[in-house]
């Protein structure tokens, strides 16, 4: 075991400081905008002091960020000893962290733009205890070869690789491991089109537009708009089209950047996900940490036969840091999805025949909504008289949605596994093993009791709070069957 001491690559100093600076940009921009760009370096001007203060504070902060980055790089050391990864860092307060290799759940690689220029990689070391979304150890930037060394050392310690093979394996690795899933260009386009991304982009545009309300002379715009409308509905339609197309293109670009070359491989009971165009990411997920699998079909995708598969994992953090729900397949044909999952988890039943909620339970899916619906409709009819009546349309819509939800609600028990299907808007199929379920709860209101129906909730661990699947208003004896099944 080498006791050689390793350092981070010097670029990590820059990366750390840039990251710190990046978080300062937004407040600065806000201050500048709220100040109305009234800056002056002329010391007679009344804005002189403000300007100096702002730039002074900013300067000092960036200097600190830079120094902080350099200090972190200079003091950060890691080495391997006694089957442990040992890390120390800190200038005044020395921090040491020793992680036994057996405890390491996964090594996640992340290559930002900076990393890629210098052929570096950010390594996040995760253990089961990495709670709150923070990895146990983060090596900001090391050479790829150095990252491979860590992986080798880890395997070494785990006795999973024979010594001679080790050298060969590193080179072959990328080729040898079977690929399970890869996203084609077409998939990416469909993903971009059917995701909520477009809506987000649109609302983002709206938010930006409203932020600049001081700068953009809306009143003039409105007058012009009025003229504009007179010109004809055709132009309006055209503009709407253009806006939609722009939103779509932005959404495609965002999707491309995030999901480009999205590949899932399986290697030694671990799933390895790689993705990204500008920033390459590699996420490792041990199969035995997976708690449950969620198949999500939003209405648009359900219609076109596509689904998203999300895994709930106990350890390791997902792409967004603190959330442990890792998207396994961002978009997959429903038929392929079941086959692939079957291949991954052969012990589980991927073709559940669900027992549905009984017909008499249907009113429970929309009746409760009238509690908030009626006051809203009443108020809007009263206050916005002629147009407020349109809110009456909410009634049939709610009822239809309720009927749809009722049709989706169902469960299946098969040996050691429980499948639940339900929807709010998107249809969710949650499949979990009995030994992974943390608790099961049944709920029954007075009205449900009269109709002999009962709702069931099952919670699995995922992140700090867990994920709960719930099916409303099942036949009471079905609900009790789930409880009894869970007991034994």
């Amino acid at each position: 075991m080498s006791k050689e001491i390793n350092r981070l690559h010097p670029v990590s100093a820059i990366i750390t400081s840039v990251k710190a600076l990046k978080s300062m940009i937004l407040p600065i921009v806000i201050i500048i905008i709220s100040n109305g760009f009234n800056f002056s370096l002329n010391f007679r001007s009344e804005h002189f002091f403000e300007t100096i203060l702002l730039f002074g504070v900013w300067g000092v902060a960036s200097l600190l960020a830079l120094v902080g980055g350099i200090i972190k790089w200079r003091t950060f050391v890691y080495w391997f000893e006694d089957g442990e990864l040992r890390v120390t860092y800190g200038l005044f307060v020395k921090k040491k962290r020793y992680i036994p290799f057996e405890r390491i759940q996964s090594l996640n690689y992340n290559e930002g733009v900076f990393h890629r220029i210098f052929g570096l990689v950010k390594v996040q070391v995760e253990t089961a205890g990495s709670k709150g979304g923070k990895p146990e150890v983060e090596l900001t930037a090391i050479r790829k070869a150095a990252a491979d060394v860590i992986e080798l050392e880890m395997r070494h310690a785990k006795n999973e690789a024979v010594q001679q093979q080790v050298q060969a394996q590193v080179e072959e690795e990328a080729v040898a491991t079977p690929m399970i899933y890869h996203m084609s260009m077409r998939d990416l386009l469909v993903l971009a089109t059917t995701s909520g991304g477009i809506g987000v982009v649109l609302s983002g545009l709206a938010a930006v537009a409203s932020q600049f309300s001081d700068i953009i002379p809306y009143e003039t715009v409105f007058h012009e708009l009025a003229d504009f409308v007179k010109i004809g509905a055709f132009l309006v339609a055209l503009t709407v089209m253009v806006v939609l197309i722009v939103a779509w293109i932005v959404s495609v670009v965002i999707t491309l950047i995030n999901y480009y070359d999205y590949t899932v491989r399986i290697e030694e009971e671990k799933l390895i996900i790689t993705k990204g165009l500008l920033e390459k990411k590699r996420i490792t997920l041990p199969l035995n940490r997976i708690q449950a699998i969620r198949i999500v079909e939003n209405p648009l995708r359900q219609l076109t036969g596509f689904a998203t598969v999300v895994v709930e994992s106990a350890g390791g953090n997902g792409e967004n840091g603190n959330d442990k729900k890792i998207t396994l397949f961002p978009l997959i044909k429903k038929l392929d999805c079941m086959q692939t999952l079957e291949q991954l988890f052969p012990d589980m039943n991927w073709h559940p025949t669900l027992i549905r909620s009984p017909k008499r339970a249907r009113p429970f899916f929309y009746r409760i909504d009238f509690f908030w619906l009626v006051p809203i409709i009443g108020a809007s009819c009263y206050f916005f008289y002629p147009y407020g009546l349109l809110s009456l349309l909410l009634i049939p819509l709610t009822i239809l949605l309720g009927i749809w939800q009722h049709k989706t609600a169902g469960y299946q028990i098969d040996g050691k596994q429980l499948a639940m299907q339900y929807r709010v808007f998107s249809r969710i199929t949650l499949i979990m093993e009995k030994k992974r379920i943390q608790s099961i709860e049944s709920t029954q209101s007075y009205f449900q009791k009269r109709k002999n129906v009962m709702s069931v909730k099952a919670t699995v661990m995922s992140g700090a709070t867990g994920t709960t699947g719930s099916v409303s208003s099942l036949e009471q004896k079905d609900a009790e069957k789930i409880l009894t099944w869970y007991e034994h």
Partner: protein
Amino acid sequence: MRAQPIHQISRKGLTVWRLYGVIQTLVLLVVAGLVSYGTYYFEWPTFIYFIAGAIVFLSAILSVFIFPKIRWERWRYEVREHEIEVQHGLFVVKRTLIPMVRVQHVDTTQGPILKKYDLGNISISTAATVHTIPALVMDEADVLRARISDLARVAEDDV
């Protein structure tokens, strides 16, 4: 029909809940007093007096007399060899099953009011959820805590 869990919580728990209701009503009374003073001082419309009064009155009736009684009658728990079952709820009856192998740790907590009545809450944590059985007689809570942790020690599957 599944049978209800067998144990009820202590009768003193009901008293404590009523006490909580009294405290809540007193707080509301103070707020209502302030609002009424404001109404008097700034000459807001008179119906505010009635609303404030009605809220305090309803709170007194519901949170002191009716709700604690329903909750107390509904609250049941049972600690069996392999699982813990609790039942609670006011309008909606909730029944929760927690297998022993999933229990990670058990806490008992006791605030000043509970202490006066020699009662304690017991919280059972799994990896993802926390379940509380309120207002148990302290000795009973301690015994229960010891028993759960004994039974839970035979854990096998990891999370």
